[in-house]
Every structure is written in structure tokens, then in C-alpha cells.
């Protein structure tokens, strides 16, 4: 269904940054993404290095856990939006086991573009990532034309 607008290769070649302090979750994400054909995947289990990676790697999408030691996802969301240029669409998909309404609202209000509760459906997560990346690609095309 995305084929009409954006070629699948244009999406799977995009750079993904996954941040989760739980190794098992990072491994799962990587498996899901590789299954979907993504090639440029960067994973982090240490959130203190997340900001550095965000600046250095300039990912097209960030998969972010909220509850992490030392620096939590909310702080990172704030930091990302401070760093980004105003007219830039760089989506953050929050993946969290905290399903409380407060957490959901707070994450979305801090700039997260989507929210998926853990444990997640692997297919659904793949589709959401693809959707967000497609939007980014279209956005970039719109800006450059």
C-alpha cells in the first residue's frame, strides 16, 4: 500500500535508532526490523549516550523506551525537540510498558509521534515504523521540491 507513493527500498534504507535499556527488547526490535528488511539499524542500551547518538547519527526515526535508569525517555524527548529544527519531521515512536494514561499523554505532549504499549504486536510495530518513515520521506520530498 505504500508502494504507490514511496518505494519500499526508500523506507528500509532509512536510519533507525532504537533506545531501550533492556537488552532482550533491543534484540527483539532488531529481529523485527531485520525481518522487515531494514538495513541501517542502530541500537543503544545506555540512555546517557542517546543524545550523542541522536546528534551524530541523525536518525530518520527513533524507537524510544520511556522508563530507563539515569536518563528517562521523557527527558530525551525534550532534548530531541530542543535540538531539532522547527520545520523538521523526525518521528519518535515511544515503546513502553507503562500503559498508564498519564505516561501516554505526557509522551505525546512532549513530541512523540506515536505510542505503542509493550508487550507489542510485532507486526503492528513494523507497520507503524514504516508509516512514520513514509511520512518523513514525503515530508522531505515536499521540503526539497
Amino acid at each position, binding site marked *: 500500500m505504500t508502494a504507490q507513493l514511496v518505494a519500499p527500498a526508500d523506507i528500509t534504507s532509512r536510519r533507525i535508532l532504537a533506545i531501550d535499556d533492556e537488552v532482550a527488547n533491543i534484540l527483539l526490535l532488531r529481529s523485527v526490523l531485520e525481518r522487515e528488511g531494514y538495513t541501517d539499524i542502530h541500537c543503544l542500551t545506555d540512555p546517557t549516550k542517546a543524545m550523542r547518538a541522536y546528534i551524530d547519527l541523525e536518525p530518520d526515526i527513533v524507537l524510544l523506551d520511556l522508563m530507563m535508569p539515569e536518563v528517562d525517555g521523557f527527558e530525551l524527548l525534550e532534548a530531541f525537540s530542543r535540538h531539532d529544527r522547527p520545520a523538521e519531521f523526525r518521528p519518535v515512536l515511544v515503546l513502553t510498558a507503562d*500503559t498508564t*494514561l498519564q505516561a501516554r499523554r505526557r509522551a505525546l505532549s512532549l513530541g512523540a509521534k506515536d505510542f505503542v504499549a*509493550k508487550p507489542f504486536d*510485532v507486526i503492528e510495530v513494523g507497520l507503524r515504523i514504516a508509516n512514520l518513515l513514509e511520512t518523513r520521506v514525503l515530508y522531505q520530498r515536499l521540503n526539497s521540491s
Partner: protein
Amino acid sequence: MPELRPSAAPLRFWADRPLAIKGLVFIAIPLAILFAALASLYLSSTAEERAEADVRRAFAIQRDTYQVHALLSQAAAGVRGYALTGEDRFLEPYSVAERELAPTIQRLDEAIEDPGVRNEYATLTNLVDAKRQGLGEIVRVSRGGEDPASSRAVLEAELSASRDVLERLGSQVDVIQRREAVLLDQRRARVDEVRSRFLLLTAISALLGLLGSIAAVYLFSTGIVRRVRVLEGNAERLAKGERLDELPDEADEIGRLAQRLGRASALLRAREKELSESEERFRLVVDRVRDYGIFALDTEGRVATWNLGAERIKGWQASEILGRHFSSFYPPETRDFLPQQIIDRAIHDGSAEDEGWRVRRDGTRFWANVVITALRDGKGTLRGFAKVTRDMSERRRTEEELRTAQDEAIAASRAKTALLSRTSHELRTPMNAILGFGQLLEIDEENFAPHHRSAVTQIMKAGRHLLSLINDLLDISSIEAGVSELAIESFDLHELLAEVHSIGLPLVKQSGLAFSLDLPEREVVVSADKRRALQVVLNLIGNSAKYNRTGKAVRLSSRIEKHMAIVEVEDDGPGIDPPDVPRLFTAFDRLGEQNRSATEGTGLGLALSRSLVESMKGKIGYEPASTGPGRLGARFWFSLPLAVDATTPTSTLTPIEVPEE
């Protein structure tokens, strides 16, 4: 003035007459007496005059009888001389007598009234006539010159007869004279009597006049002056507010005035009594008020009155504090300026309120709320201040405690939320890896041997069960901890139930049952969290589908009862064993453990449903359903509050206006 109570009827009658009549009587009494006196004087004087006339007439009669005698004597003497001498000059007295006698006799005839005298008078006139005849005969004889001898003899005889008549006349005159003298004496005596009577009458008239005047004055005094004086006194007493002298209720103007005065006094007294009673009541109320210190200050700020509340709050007895300046109630740090500031504000704005520390007599402090009101009289002159003091220490403490409790509650709520988030995170995170990898394995299951495939299926089944368990547990915990936010809204319950029916239909059919929806025509708007309500209905439908092994149908219906919408899920299955009913809604108390392998469930469904329904102010329950003769079934029901008005908020809070002081 007890003599002013005319009890006798005449006096009362007199008092009742109008003032005009009384005035007329006061003037009429002396006037009448005066007229009577004048009349009697007049009568007396005419009587005296008449008596005096009688006397005069007596004198006249005496004089005239003498005159008659004298005229006849002189005439007789003259005639005799003429007879002797024949000289005409002797006839002079005779002619005088002839001329004078007639009028004299005439006068006598008119004057004589006494009958005795009139008899004598008749004799006298006969004698007078005889004499005159005799004298006339002599004169005729003397003048005739006929026979001197015979004439002499006749003359002699006539002379002698005349002399005789004259003598008898003389004696008759004497008789009349004597008689008249007697009458005269009588008349004089009568005159004297009349005169003395007249004197007496005059004296009596004067006395009566005096008495009449005294009576008039007395009546005037008793009828008017004294009563007016009493009235005056009463008016003065009325002005002073004293009790009035009682006056009989006479019907004249003064009486009426007195009655009106009396009524005015009674009215005034009643009002005064009412006022003083009300004042007394007010004073008692103010005195007895224990929770408020209510007292008055004079214009200088000195304490003028003191009540029980003030004594209780501030610790001063009235006798100790009266006359002292109210700055004594202030702690040293504010004593020099704050009292004056408050007073100034009260003078400027009419009243002033302040809240702060005050000191009691023993030096301890209390937190006070103080209202000072300037008291002004009708002309706006400042007369002093009313001061109401409340000891707010207790309230302040309560407020502080409340604040602390609130803070603690908020902190506790935050802690609970944090714990639930944490727990949710900690429990779900491993589930994510388990279920995520499991799902990946499921997707690739054609690559596995059958026994591996079956292992993956079991892992996924157990994992999903564990996840639903975790979800239900977290749901119940968050509802019971009060941190779960409900999205209460007004919505049509029937729409929701129709949705449930369409969602649940495949599931129920899968169990080989019929699923019917039975709703009344009209829409039912309830006030609840739509998602939660859906969760509850689905849970009940799921139970019916799962446990109704023997029956044929599940029925979903709704009705309205006492401001609540009731949703019923009924089946024709075996129902619940009565001993199990009380444990139905208890967590982890799955019934029919022997069927565990046959049915899957967390054991939390009904407990969660109860928490959800109760959090939406509804109730949940179970009762056996009789679906036919000899057939039992299970009927689960729950209620949700009807929306009071679908278009307005369910509750309207009206802010209470607190008057500013």
C-alpha cells in the same frame, strides 16, 4: 387627688357635660342670681312707694277735712255777721267756701279708700250739704227783708241749726281725722316693714350672689381647672415616662383628652416594655454568646462593655478590663501601631477586619479574627466601636492539618501512581520479549518440527494468559488506588449494547449459542466511562459464552429502574451453585476449579468488573434466572447512573457568596 373621683351620679352627670355647657352654667348661675336680686329690689321699691303714697294720701285727707271744716266755719261766721249787719262784706268767706268746697270734697272723694273712713265721709258730706243749705237759707232770709219779726225768728232758728250742724261737722271731722291718724300710723308701720324687708332682701341677694359665684368657681374648679391640672401633671409624667394618675373616663373634652393621654401612655409603656424586653433579650444573647467576644469601645478605644465570649477568649473579667484601652489585646510587636490602624480603617470605611495574633490576659497568644465596626448616631457622629473577636486558633490548626493531610494525600496518590507505573513496566517488559519473540516464531512456524510448533503455541498461550492476568491486576489496582482516570461522559447505552452485540456475536456463536439483544425502544443516556462500560459488558458476555455448556442462548437486555440503567446478561446454562454466589466477585476465586482446563480465564474478570462498575457509581450483581419450567440459568446485571441531562453537566456547583466585611 382622690377627691377627684366623683362617684355620686349627679357629679358624674356634671362631669360628663361638654365644656360649652359647663361654661354656660358657670356664667348663668351668677347672672340668674343677679337678675333675681334686681327683680326683688324692684318689687320692694314699688311696694315702698305705694306705702309712701298711702301715707301722703292720709295726710291729704286730714288736710282736706280740716279745710272743709275751716271753710264752713269761716262761711258760717261770715253769714252770721251778714245776718246781723246786713253788710255784704261779711259774705266774702261764704262765697269762698261755696267756690272751694266742691273741689275739696271732690279730692276727698278720690283720696278716700278705706271703707270705714268712706262711711264717715258720707256722713260728712251730708253734714256739709246741710250746713251749706242752712247758710244759704240764712243769706236768703237776711237779704229778703220781708217780715223782720218772722225773719228774725227764722234767722234765729237757722243760725242755731247751722251752729248745730257745724258742731256735728266738727265732731265728724274729728272722727275722720282720728281714723286717718290710725291709718297713717298703720301705713307708716308698713312702710317701715317694707323698708326693712327690702334691706333683708338686698342682703340675701348679695349673699346668694356670693354663694352662686362660689358655686360657679367650685364647679369650674372641679369640672375643669383641677382636672386640667391633673392632665398637665400626667402630660409631664408621660414626658418623663412615669406612670400616669388614673382619671375617671368622663365623656367631656377633658375626659376624652385624659383617655387619649392614658391610651398614649399605655401604648408608650407597651412599646417601652417591648423595647426593653427586646433589649434585654439582645443583651442576654450578646452576654451569653461564648464563641464570639462581643464588646463595645468608646470613641477613645477604651473597653465599654464585655461579654462572656470575650471573657472566655481573652481571659479578662469585665471588672478588670472595662475602661482599659483595647491595645492591651495586641502583642508587643504590633501594639504601638496596629490598633490605631484598625480604628482608622473602621472610621474611614465603616468597619475593618483583621486576622492575626492577639494576647490573652495570661500572655498566651491566640489567632484571632477581629471585626471592628464604627458606631455612629443618626447625625453621623462617632459614638464608639463594636468589636467582634473570634478565636481562630482551632480553625487555623485544623486548616493546617487539612493542608498537611491534603499534601500527604497528593503525595500518596503520586506514590501510588508511580508504583503502578513501575509495576506495570516491570511486569510488562519481560512479557514484551517473551511474546515478541514468540510471535516471530509463530510467524515462521512452518520452518519448525511439529513438536516445536506445539511448544511455541503453548508458550504463546501461557504468555498471553499471563499478560491478561497482569493487565486485569493492574486495572483493579489502579481503580482501587483511585489513580485510574475515568472518562465520564453521557452516551446512549443502547448504542453501546448494540456494538457489544456485534462484537460478541462471533465469540458466542463459536460456543454454539444464540445471542439475542433485547432493548426498549427509546434511547437510554447514561453517565459513565464508555470504554470501561464496554469492558464490563464484554466480560459478562464472555463468561456466559464460556461457562454455558448446556444451554442454547445468551440474552443481553436493558431496562430502567430508579434513575439507573440496568444491563442484564442472561443465559440458560447451569447457573451458579448457591453456596458459590457470595464469592462470585472476589479476585482469583474461580468457580468450578474442576473445569479449569476446559475454560480459560484469569479469575479476575468479575472482580475487575465490580471495581469498574463501582468506580462509575453503579452496582453489579447476580441472581438465578428461570428461563423455563425446571430450567435455571445465570443472570448477571449491573447498573449505571442515568445522565441527569444529556446536554448539561451532571452536577452544578453554585459558588456561595461570602459577604465581604
